[in-house]
């Protein structure tokens, strides 16, 4: 009984770690793609700031009376476009979060269903090649929490941006960067290394 439960649990864990690895790659590449539109968002805010600081009528551009309005409009359009791109990326990040979340909760559910038949020794037993079930479940939950928090923080950052609040827009790239959490990312990579023997043993 315990043996059967353990092997089906191992199978489910294998599947989850495989999906975690795939999703980690997607997450990284989507996050990298967010860089350019984020940078241009900050850049556009800088341009809007400069435009607000300059009195066009006191400059050589005074021959163009509606220039400021027109430029403001164009800057707003470009800002919108950058925000639109970022929103698209956010939905890709969201699907990574959801995929990881679903995998992890499925494994946990399977564990709970079989928990009665598994004694502590079976769950905590580990070998050189295979980490214990308890450890692996913990790592999966850590990864799931990481993506959930990351997604929420980034989403919140984007949702607090307002086109008329230049300082928020200007600081957005820096704040976006400060959300990077390389230690948690490394943790996931470590985890994937630790389970690599398990993944290969079929």
């Amino acid at each position, binding site marked *: 009984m315990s043996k059967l439960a353990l092997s089906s649990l191992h199978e489910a864990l294998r599947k989850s770690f495989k999906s975690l690895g795939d999703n980690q790659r997607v997450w990284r590449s989507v996050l990298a793609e967010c860089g350019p539109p984020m940078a241009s968002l900050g850049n556009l805010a800088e*341009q809007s700031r400069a435009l607000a600081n300059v009195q066009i009528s006191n*400059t050589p551009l005074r021959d*163009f009376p509606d*220039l400021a309005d*027109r430029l403001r409009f*164009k800057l707003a359009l470009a800002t919108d476009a950058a925000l639109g791109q970022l929103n698209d990326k956010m939905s890709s990040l969201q699907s990574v979060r959801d995929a990881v979340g679903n995998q992890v909760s499925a494994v946990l559910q399977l564990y709970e269903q079989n928990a009665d038949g598994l004694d502590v020794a079976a769950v905590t037993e580990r070998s050189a090649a295979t980490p214990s079930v308890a450890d692996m479940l913990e790592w999966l939950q850590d990864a799931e929490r990481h993506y959930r928090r990351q997604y929420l923080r980034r989403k919140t950052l984007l949702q607090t941006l307002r086109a008329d609040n230049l300082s928020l827009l200007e600081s957005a790239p820096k704040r976006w960067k400060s959300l990077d959490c390389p230690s948690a990312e490394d943790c996931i990579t470590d985890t994937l290394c630790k389970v690599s023997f398990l993944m290969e043993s079929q």
Partner: protein
Amino acid sequence: MDGEAGDVMVTSANRKRSVVTGSARKMKDNAADWHNLMMRWNKLNEDGFNVAEKIVNIRLSQSDQQLLVGESSSSSSAAPAGGAAELEDECCKLQDVVNKMVAVVTKMECLMTSQRGIQDLEEFQFGPEGRKVPQFHTWNTKQFERTCGSLCDAFRSELRLKQTILEEVGHTVTSDLSVVLLSCWLHQPFNPPQTRRALEALLLETGHRPL
């Protein structure tokens, strides 16, 4: 004026294949020329922006140096020669870009003149009402003239702005104004999104783009 556009390209080869003749032929060719000229303009705009950006960077670093010199020794008359030659070089490049833009706008004005000619011819042929049946899908000749006119106006204003930027960008030392100049160059405030839509409408109407 070889179209560097990645999308539908209008080459002289497929122009010849078509059976349209007379005024319609001329209008269709003009539409293709509008497309090509606008592509060329966009390319020039990009090139010009890179040059203008360099100019601003040189100018700002020069004024920083001047400030430092002024602080260390009060003889600020010693002009920093560093970068002056480079600055002049880049300004010449920008002048070159603007000259090419002038040529583009001149060609656009020729297209406008030709469109007006077609309009006049039509009035001569059909009276002040113009022709009863549209040349292509739905537009009458007046609508063509109006569209071409709006495109022409947009690029004429944009060119005037570019010429002002060209004159000022090398002399501007305040960073805010420099940013505004660059921003004006890049975002083309007199070239609203309607311009692009007007061109697309023109291409659709004349059958360059499939309906």
